[in-house]
């Protein structure tokens, strides 16, 4: 692996993404076995450092670590000393003092994982930094797409919803572009970032045209707190313009793969009848999440790392 940490997928090498995906498939086989545990990271200590609420990502990481036989510790901001005014730096240095091997961090501020590398020698894996990146989610999305289609190069992927506030979108864009996929963004103009063309993607506000074009839709969560903040008029308006409903899909006579990084707002950005249908691979994404995170941890901590530098 070229980089010692996984901070984001911007400028992350295609061959390393490929090798993570390949390794994820190997681990997925392990997850299908009756005994789902391998000794690869036996003796390694990993801290899951979560400054922001997360259930799914944290459990997915924790499970991946346990399947690899690593020792894990969970640290979440609500139970931590941060409320007592301890600084980010102190928290980091305390962890460092306890001789750990890796930190999986979620933080509400863009750049926080890079910031952590200044204070700590352990390997850092970004589990989401504000509205910046969420690289492991993008890797599991790519693993799922690769599994479904057999290829990523030339694949037409639409990302639908709140792009501006989405770390999932940004990491998916970087990763998929690197792997040669085509991307169209679709969502309200107030939730598409300015200068988005610089990311090498198309923007189309007409969801029906996007459905016609795409091989797969990655439907993002619309956070209810965006409503009324001047960005979106109402849930009804959003559903009318961008909601992935059964009625809308039935107007298009085509095979289409539906993804969602979760947690879903059923009845807002996606209907239950779509989310629970055969064309949705949402639960498969969850399993691939564990396999992909096993692959990432294995390659960065135990396996074939060539001690690359960042």
């Amino acid at each position, binding site marked *: 692996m070229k980089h010692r940490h996984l901070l984001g997928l911007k400028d992350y090498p295609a061959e390393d993404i490929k090798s993570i995906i390949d390794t994820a498939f190997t681990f997925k086989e392990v997850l299908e076995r009756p005994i789902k545990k391998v000794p690869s990271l036996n003796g390694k200590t990993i801290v899951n450092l979560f400054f922001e609420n997360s259930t799914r990502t944290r459990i997915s990481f924790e499970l991946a670590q346990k399947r690899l036989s690593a020792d894990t510790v969970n640290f979440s901001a609500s139970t931590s000393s941060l409320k007592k005014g301890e600084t980010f730096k102190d928290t980091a240095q305390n962890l460092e003092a306890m001789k750990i091997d890796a930190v999986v961090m979620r933080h509400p501020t863009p*750049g926080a994982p890079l*910031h952590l590398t200044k204070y700590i020698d352990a390997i850092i894996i970004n589990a989401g930094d504000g509205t910046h990146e969420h690289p492991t989610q993008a890797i599991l999305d790519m693993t799922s797409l690769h599994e479904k289609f057999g290829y990523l190069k030339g694949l037409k992927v639409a990302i639908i919803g709140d792009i501006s506030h989405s770390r999932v979108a940004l990491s998916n864009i970087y990763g998929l572009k690197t792997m040669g996929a085509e991307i169209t963004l679709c969502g309200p103009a107030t939730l598409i970032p*300015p*200068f*988005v063309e610089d990311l090498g993607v198309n923007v189309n506000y007409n969801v029906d045209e996007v459905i016609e074009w795409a091989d797969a839709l990655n439907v993002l969560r619309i956070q209810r707190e965006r409503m009324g903040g001047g960005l979106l008029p109402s849930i009804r308006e959003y559903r009318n313009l961008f909601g992935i409903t059964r009625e809308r899909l039935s107007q298009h006579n085509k095979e289409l793969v539906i993804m969602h990084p979760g947690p879903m707002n059923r009845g807002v950005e996606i209907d239950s009848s779509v989310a629970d249908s055969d064309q949705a691979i949402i639960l498969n994404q969850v399993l691939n999440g564990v396999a992909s995170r096993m692959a990432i941890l294995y390659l960065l901590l135990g396996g074939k790392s060539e001690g690359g530098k960042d």
Partner: protein
Amino acid sequence: MDFSKLKKQVILKGGKILDPIENTIKKSDLVLEDGKIKALGKFNSNKSAHLIDCKGLIITHGFCDLHAHFREPGREDKETLESGSMAALAGGFTRVCVMPNTNPPIDSPEVIRYIVDRSEECPIYIHPIGAITKGQEGNELTEMGTMLSEGAVAFSDDGLPVTNSAIMRNALEYGTMFDIPIINHAEDLCLKQDAVMHEGKVSTHLGLPSSPDLTESNMVHRDLSLTDLTGGRLHVPHVSSSKSLDHIRIAKRKNDKVTAEVTPHHLFFTDNDLQKFDTNLKVAPPIRTTSDQKALIKALKDGTLDCIATDHAPHTIEEKEGTFDLAPFGMIGLESCFGAVNKVLVKENNLDQLDLIQMLTTRPRKIMGFNDNLLDIGVNAELTIIDPNEEWIFSRADIQSKSYNSPFIGQNMYGRVKYTICKDHISVI
């Protein structure tokens, strides 16, 4: 930096005297006696005089900064009038106007008097800028007339924009009685929201909350229109965007009461430099694009911008070593100013050395009404001596401020302040 009292007689030998008022550079020695300019010409050393070899160096007026934060009273852990003075001397500045966002704010004749009295003991000349409104709250005008008689030189609510257009109008109108500059930090806070950087290609990649250049230029445009309406005097601080320059350029064609400044950091850095999330580059207004940077340089050349001001803003390391969202806005800038702007403007963009010196001396002094010629015989020596060609790297050791939140640390500099003479003392840098 070595700081000591001047000897009774000092001979600055072999340098060039750059006179920013007469627009001349000529070889001459300069003799100081009892801290005053005694004579220019050619002089031989004598036993009792302190001889300073100025070969290859330029001797000129002490620099004047229109925009600095010395944090006193209230945040003496970040800077004091003394430590700020030492930072100024290290940067070649002998005269600094300090902003009123202290605690309590400089919003009354009493606090103006406090700053003026405290400054008497400081090794540079410090001039307080009073707040436009009481408590910088944007509601009620301060006692400008009385504050001026106590020593205020201008008015500004500093980092807090005067958002209420009626109050801004009143400030400009009231200010016409005194012919002093009204300085408004131009940012439309509604448009800015929680932004921490410029909205552009880079912010889209970094995912940081951002706001567009209009955040500044809309308010600059409003202030220029109100200046037009009232006949007041407006000084636009730390202009950062090309769009603001367009408005200022047009306004200046018909209104000679408009002036504007630019900071070294807006000239030196672009938003690309934020890729590493360096909190020292978090500043308001934000560092903008390469094309804004080019426009600022052009605007200094064509006179749209009058002068350079540092917006020296000390913050503690504890505040700046946190994450990007929590870090306060601002960076220090006095010590690094000359090496940075001389590099960008003179070395890289062919600005005349004399023009640059004017942007640091006569032009800011004129805005504040400091019009005396510092090279006249008999005046108190207030001089800066520079090596215009020294290449060096700015480091922590070059900082005299109590704080060291500087993105210039590690940057290549061109041209360096060697000596600063002020109030009968000499700083050897």
